[in-house]
């Protein structure tokens, strides 16, 4: 059967169910056919003859399309999914078996947590199918949305135990994590636009980060600010060391930024000491309750699953071909590392003044759902790693 170049490529793409892969496949096949055509044209064939012969030498488009579909039809990082699922299972089993807790029976919290897990699972699927690149392209608009949401929360939110809630009709939800997520997405988008933009690019990203942190801080949030501070500081440091901004005085910039970071942390710590802000919610010491009820074996198993989750995420993040996906996935990994560490040490009384949940284990709908969103975005980046153009050195 005769196919024109376009018909051949269309036939191949028709068999590939992952539509986002079509562009890359089309470009690659088109270039290859052009090369063969060029060869035939040099041999004296007419353009039409050269096209027919070139397409014939490519093979059967249906078979090629079906084989490509096998490669592109799925790309799930199962280690990440199963370890996040494993931690959720640990969380739900603990709640169901804990018995009486400060604010009611564990079974009630367990049932509520089951609902969060169902919503979280749905969120992961949605984020996995969502093209993260389209989300990131709207970085500035999303940032503006984050600022607006912050303002609405300041004006209309209710603060309970240091956490601010917004009420829409019958539904009340904790806003800080959503605001934080919008800022993270937008800052990664802004970072994506500042490659090789020298000092201007660096200063631009830092200003947006400072704005985001201030906005989070004003929302009376003692939980997320220190963690995001470490996340953004790490991202900026890695970007400078990788010469992402193409700035000349790399180490001078790093010294200034880290100096300012240490100063800010000291000021923040002094402020916390004066306010004497201790964990007020039982969820902040949920891990300690679990350890006292089920023993250290339970904690060791949980830690092992956390190590698998973090380890597999780091390995995947290092393989991300695009700069944006690399920095975004590194930011997510650092966020989870900080959350696990801070959440654990608070539980055992080694750190006062802030509160943090243990991702996927701790009770709390908003925390759980936003953590699932991050996992979904991570999976979305991994899914598309095969079709994005490489713009970073691996």
């Amino acid at each position: 059967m005769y196919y024109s170049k376009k018909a051949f490529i269309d036939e191949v793409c028709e068999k590939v169910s992952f539509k986002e892969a079509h562009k890359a496949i089309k470009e690659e096949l088109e270039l290859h056919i052009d090369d063969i055509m060029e060869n035939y044209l040099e041999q004296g064939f007419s353009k039409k003859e050269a096209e027919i012969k070139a397409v014939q030498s490519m093979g059967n488009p249906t078979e090629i399309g079906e084989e490509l579909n096998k490669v592109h039809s799925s790309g799930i990082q199962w280690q990440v999914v199963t370890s996040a699922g494993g931690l959720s299972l640990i969380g739900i089993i603990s709640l169901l078996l804990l018995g009486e807790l400060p604010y009611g029976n564990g079974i009630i919290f367990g049932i509520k947590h089951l609902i969060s897990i169902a919503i979280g699972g749905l969120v992961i699927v949605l984020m996995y199918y969502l093209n993260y690149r389209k989300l990131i392209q709207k970085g500035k608009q999303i940032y503006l949305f984050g600022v607006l949401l912050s303002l609405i929360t300041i004006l209309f939110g209710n603060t309970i135990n240091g956490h601010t809630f917004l009420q829409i009709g019958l539904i009340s939800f904790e806003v800080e994590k959503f605001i934080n997520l919008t800022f993270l997405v937008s800052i990664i988008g802004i970072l994506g636009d500042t490659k090789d933009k020298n000092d201007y690019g660096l200063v631009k990203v830092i200003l947006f980060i400072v704005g985001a942190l201030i906005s989070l801080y004003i929302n009376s949030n003692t939980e997320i600010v220190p963690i995001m501070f470490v996340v953004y500081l790490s991202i900026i440091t890695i970007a400078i060391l990788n010469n992402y901004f193409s700035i000349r005085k790399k180490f001078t910039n790093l010294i200034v930024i880290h100096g300012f970071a240490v100063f800010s942390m000291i000021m923040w710590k002094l402020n916390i000491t004066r306010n004497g802000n201790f964990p007020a919610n039982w969820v902040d010491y949920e891990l300690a309750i679990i350890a006292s009820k089920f023993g250290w074996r339970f904690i060791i198993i949980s830690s092992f699953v956390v190590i698998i989750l973090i380890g597999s995420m780091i390995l995947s993040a290092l393989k991300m071909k695009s700069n944006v996906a690399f920095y975004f996935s590194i930011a997510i990994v650092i966020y989870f590392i900080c959350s696990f560490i801070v959440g654990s040490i608070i539980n055992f009384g080694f750190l006062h003044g802030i509160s943090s949940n243990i991702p996927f284990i701790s009770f709390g709908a908003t925390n759980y759902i936003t953590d699932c969103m991050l996992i979904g975005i991570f999976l979305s980046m991994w899914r598309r790693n095969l079709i994005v153009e490489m713009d970073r050195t691996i």
Partner: protein
Amino acid sequence: MNFHKSLMSGSTSLMILSLLESEDMYGYQMVKELEKKSENAFSLKEGTLYPILHSLEKEDFVISYISEGEKGKKRKYYKITEAGKKQLEDKKSEWISFSNSLNKVVGVK
């Protein structure tokens, strides 16, 4: 000489990895190099190369990048990774062992 499709299918990824060991290449360049090295014995349907290349990239044995080739054309080059080099060594050993055993069975010296 044209070999049967089933004989080619298992060994194409080995040949691709072997080609990429010496330099980064784009699809068309690989086909031509394969023909040249095999003295036209291996002439595969050129489009069938891409599912194999994409699969190798998914398995982390190669990595692709866009670069300007000859005549200023932008092309998708493939580069062998460290995991790919290890896979190549394993596949080579497997191939040597397999062909030696096969030769003994069919009586080729």
